[in-house]
Every structure is written in structure tokens, then in C-alpha cells.
């Protein structure tokens, strides 16, 4: 038995999903589906593409055109899909490691092209599928199985990264504030261009245990308490910002979209221009 939403948009027979108890991925996945529902998109016109990792299992549960690709390469495959059929609403579901370590190059170039793909990063600050290794978003000093003495790396701010690379819509939300996240995702899909939505979520099994962050409930509570809306964030002192992060819609600009530009090029030949 399932809710109306699940019945309509999920492949019910593939549930329950593989994610651990209390994993935020399910919350973010539901937010994506709610966003699609709010826009009233036809399921045949949506293609969800993922790479490898915990988050990348999401498309398999969803009743759209779904493509579970190789590690880090979701945006590469998605670019081919979008180019081939620009009418499709292409959504990429990826993780922090998938999108910004192994797939970092594809991320910045998809931003640069401003191709009409909405990318949702499930940022849980860890490689979960392989058992808890530190990722490009693991905070400096935190532990992973490959950072047993604390992570020496500085971590990425993915929203700043994608802004620098040229994305036209950028927002950060959380698995706690799931309604707000839905809104960001819906706005991202509506944006004609590359949209980047970072969803801060929690991995109680690996990141949580390794860093003594408590239960799934404790971790979601921490996410709630650490997230500060961007307007309020700007008023905080550096000291007050410690251990917190900013959420909100950070960037929303109009600029030429890649497949539209390519369409115009094709059109110019149809009209006999050269």
C-alpha cells in the first residue's frame, strides 16, 4: 500500500529502497517527486539520470525515463539525452563525491554551457556506498575511514563552485526543510538553463557514526539548527557562523541556454542562412 504520491510517481514494486534507516536520501527523493508533481509534468517527458553511489539509486525507484550510469558521469549521459531531445525535462540526481570529485569536470562544464538540466546533489558529506570515506564536502577535521586522524582537505562549497562555473539557478536546501527544498527543485526545473540544487542530508550510518553525531533524528535536528537563511547569514559574525551553513536561493539569472542556441543554429540552415 502506498500514498497517492508514491502510487503515481514511484515504481512501487521496487520498494522498500536500499537506503539505511534514517538516511535522508528518501526525503530528498520525495521532494524531487513533489516538485515534479507541483509542475504537473508528464511522466513521459521527464528523464532522471544518476551516477554511482547511494543517491544514484534514486532513479530506479521512480516511474520516469530513468538512467543509472557510471560513477561521476551522470551529467555526461544527461547532456547526450538533453541534446538528443531538448523537450525532455532532464534531472540529474547525484551525490557529493559523484558530482564534485570524480564528476567535477562534468559539473563545471555543464554549468558553463548552461544546458537545461536540473542537478540535485544529495550532500551527505561522505562516500556512503563504499563505507564512509571522506569526500570533497567532508568538513576539514572530520573523520572518514580514509581520514582516520581527521580530514586534512579543505572542502568545496558546491554552490560557490557552480556559481563560478556559470550555472544560472543555484539554491541550497536541506532534508529537514523538505517543503522549501521542493520549491527550490521546482524553480530549478522551471529555469531554462543549468540549475544546481544542493540538498544537505544526513548519513547516520557512516558519517554519523564515524563522527559521533548521534542518531538519524539527532543528525536531522543538527541540520535544522545549523541551516541559516542567506539573509540572516549575512548578519552573523564569523564566530556565529562556526559550525553553521547558509541556505536559500543564491543565484537566479537569465542567460542563453545551450540546446536552445543549438536549435537556432539548426534553424538557420533550415532558413537557408549560413
Amino acid at each position: 500500500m502506498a500514498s497517492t504520491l508514491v502510487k503515481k510517481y514511484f515504481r512501487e514494486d521496487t520498494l522498500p529502497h536500499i537506503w539505511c534507516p534514517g538516511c535522508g536520501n528518501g526525503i530528498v527523493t520525495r521532494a524531487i517527486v513533489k516538485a515534479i508533481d507541483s509542475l504537473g509534468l508528464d511522466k513521459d517527458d521527464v528523464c532522471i539520470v544518476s551516477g554511482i553511489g547511494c543517491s544514484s539509486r534514486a532513479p530506479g525507484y521512480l516511474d520516469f525515463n530513468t538512467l543509472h550510469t557510471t560513477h561521476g558521469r551522470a551529467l555526461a549521459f544527461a547532456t547526450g539525452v538533453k541534446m538528443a531531445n531538448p523537450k525532455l525535462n532532464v534531472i540529474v540526481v547525484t551525490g557529493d563525491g559523484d558530482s564534485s570529485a570524480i564528476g567535477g569536470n562534468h559539473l563545471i562544464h555543464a554549468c558553463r554551457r548552461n544546458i537545461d538540466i536540473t542537478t540535485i546533489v544529495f550532500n551527505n558529506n561522505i562516500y556512503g556506498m563504499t563505507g564512509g570515506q571522506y569526500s570533497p564536502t567532508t568538513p576539514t577535521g572530520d573523520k572518514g575511514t580514509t581520514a582516520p586522524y581527521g580530514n586534512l582537505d579543505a572542502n568545496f562549497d558546491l554552490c560557490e563552485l557552480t556559481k563560478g562555473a556559470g550555472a544560472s539557478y543555484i539554491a541550497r536546501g536541506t532534508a529537514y526543510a523538505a517543503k522549501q527544498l521542493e520549491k527550490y527543485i521546482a524553480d530549478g526545473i522551471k529555469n531554462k538553463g543549468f540549475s544546481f540544487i544542493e540538498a544537505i542530508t544526513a548519513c547516520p550510518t557512516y558519517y554519523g557514526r564515524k563522527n559521533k553525531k548521534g542518531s538519524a533524528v539527532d543528525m536531522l535536528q543538527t541540520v535544522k539548527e545549523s541551516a541559516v537563511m542567506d539573509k540572516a547569514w549575512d548578519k552573523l559574525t564569523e564566530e556565529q557562523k562556526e559550525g553553521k551553513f547558509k541556505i536559500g536561493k543564491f543565484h537566479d539569472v537569465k542567460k542563453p541556454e545551450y540546446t536552445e542556441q543549438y536549435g537556432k543554429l539548426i534553424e538557420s540552415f533550415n532558413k537557408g542562412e549560413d
Partner: protein
Amino acid sequence: MATTTTVGLKSHTVEDKWCKGCGICVAFCPKNVLELENEIVVVKRLEDCIQCGQCELRCPDFAIWLGGK
């Protein structure tokens, strides 16, 4: 198996096959309607429920929702 609890016009359904007992819905319910029993959520005090849907919103397993089957 899915269990629907109904009080007056309010009803709430739990699919216990999908519930993994994480307790998120219990913790974030503003009216303390839910409890875990044998690591599965049960709707204990539906009369107090304000149908805000916070449980459904944050259930990572799509195992609890407002309304019937």
C-alpha cells in the same frame, strides 16, 4: 501490511513493510501523535493530530502518510 487509523475525519496510514523505524516522524511530530513499537511507527494519538503532514514530508521510507489506503 498497511494499517490505517481513523478518528472522525482524520486518518493516517502506515506501511509497516517499508518503515525502518528511524524515528524521524516520531521526533518531528509537533503534537506527539506517533510512537515506535517494535521499531515500527504506530499512530497512537490521532485525536491530537493536526494533519500538518510533517511525518509524511520527512519519512525517508514513504511509509507514513495522511489519509487512507
